């Protein structure tokens, strides 16, 4: 009844619905003011920024995903996402040698592997409408894990230097000497994703599924899409972190199998 009053059709909450959902921002602001949290301005600014960013993206996306438009617009969009994600990673893990180049390779590899499976097996139709959002899921969900694995690998190289050089001194190759630390860093990056995957449907209902159900899709169909998205995220995180960590471990050692000494870059 309320939905009808607000003019919500399937998949479209309308401007009135959008405005009404803003009441929830007002609730958060009210709580901040009531408890003197000093977050009212931040809440308003973040909400406004999200609104503008997403409206802008939605407006541009409608041209990119238009079935009549050539796919190179989608390709351009994906490249932009990879470049932006790589730049963000390089800012957050600035001590990693050649971090920008490594990030570009890692996100590109994940996009090729994951999208290759999704479209190669015709799980989704190959068109802008599917290509851009799926690539966004690949890259966006890999970002935090990629930064985490990068930082973990550098911390291991610094704090476990005596163990790594102890193995090198026994005649192990650089990759064998660093393997236990590489394994630990990858586990640290992947375990949260595995836990999230295990908890899905029990502890929380994931965003893609909720969005589809709200848009009027049958829950059983929404679940199928959601499962493919969960697998996509797992595959993306695993591929990106694996490529990134292999690249970093090569950067940390000289061709003579010596652990390089790093000079940490100052935070900007």
């Amino acid at each position, binding site marked *: 009844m309320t939905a009808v009053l607000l003019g919500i059709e399937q998949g479209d909450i309308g401007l009135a619905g959008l405005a009404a959902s803003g009441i929830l921002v007002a609730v958060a602001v009210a709580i901040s003011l009531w408890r003197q949290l000093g977050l009212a301005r931040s809440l308003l600014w973040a909400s406004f920024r999200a609104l503008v960013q997403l409206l802008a993206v939605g407006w541009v996306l409608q041209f990119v995903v238009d079935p009549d438009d050539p796919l190179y617009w989608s390709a351009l969009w994906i490249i932009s996402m990879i470049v932006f994600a790589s730049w963000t990673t390089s800012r957050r893990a600035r001590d990693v040698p050649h971090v920008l180049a490594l990030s570009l390779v890692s996100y590109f590899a994940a996009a090729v592997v994951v999208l290759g499976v999704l479209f190669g097996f015709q799980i989704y139709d190959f068109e802008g409408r599917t290509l851009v959002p799926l690539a966004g899921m690949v890259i966006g969900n890999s970002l935090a894990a990629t930064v985490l694995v990068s930082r973990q690998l550098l911390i291991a190289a610094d704090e476990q230097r005596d163990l790594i050089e*102890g*193995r090198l*001194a*026994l*005649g192990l*190759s650089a990759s064998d000497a660093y393997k236990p630390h590489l394994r630990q860093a990858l586990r640290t990056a992947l375990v949260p994703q595995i836990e999230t995957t295990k908890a899905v449907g029990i502890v929380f209902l994931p965003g893609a599924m909720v969005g589809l159900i709200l848009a009027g899709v049958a829950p059983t169909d929404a679940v199928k899409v959601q499962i493919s998205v969960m697998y996509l995220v797992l595959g993306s995180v695993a591929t990106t972190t694996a490529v990134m960590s292999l690249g970093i471990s090569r950067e940390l050692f000289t061709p*003579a199998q010596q*652990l390089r000494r790093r000079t940490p870059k100052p935070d900007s």
Partner: protein
Amino acid sequence: MSASNAFVLDHVEAGIPGDPILRSIDVTIPGTGITVLAGPSGAGKTTFLRLLNRLDDPLRGEIYWNGRALSDWDPTELRRRVAMVFQRPPLFPGSVCENLQVALPDISNERALHVLEHVGLDADLLDQEATTLSGGEAQRMCVARALLTEPDVLLADEPTAALDSAARQKVEELGESLAGSGVAIVWVSHDTDQLRRLADHVIVLADGMVRATGTLAELDASEDAIVRQSVGAI
């Protein structure tokens, strides 16, 4: 340039570019017995030793072992033939047996027990967590681990610096026993009593340069006060 495990350092400079720790090092390390690297703290002894295991490369100059430049050796092969033990023994996670397996993955139980006996460790320690060993046991376990690669040379970076006198004596006896069996040893020490007990040959480093080199008797007779002080002659 002689062969037989001797090292020859030719105009070696090492450390940080623009601020080297070692400068103009021209010295030969004999391929037999125990050579002690002596000198005050900060003289560059550890930097010197790391060059021989190729954990670091010199900024300038060349190092030869067995008549061949270190840069021409495969680093992993070189490190198995020129083994190194550190001042603070690096203990890998797991048991003593698992630590030995890092050096020799397919080590037999018999070989593991034999190498423990060789360094004077009890066979019962084989299944013990390496991190629970005492300082002296840990250092001897690290020597045992290094010996599994059957090295021609053992580099020892102040291996007894953190040990009590009983443990220190056992490690020194192990060093002498290894030298007696034909393993050349380069031993870093700033303990002049230890130097006088062990050294067949001494290299004195000071301010990143070789101050003197020779037998203990030769250096005792030196007119250089720093050299005599470094070998405990004063």
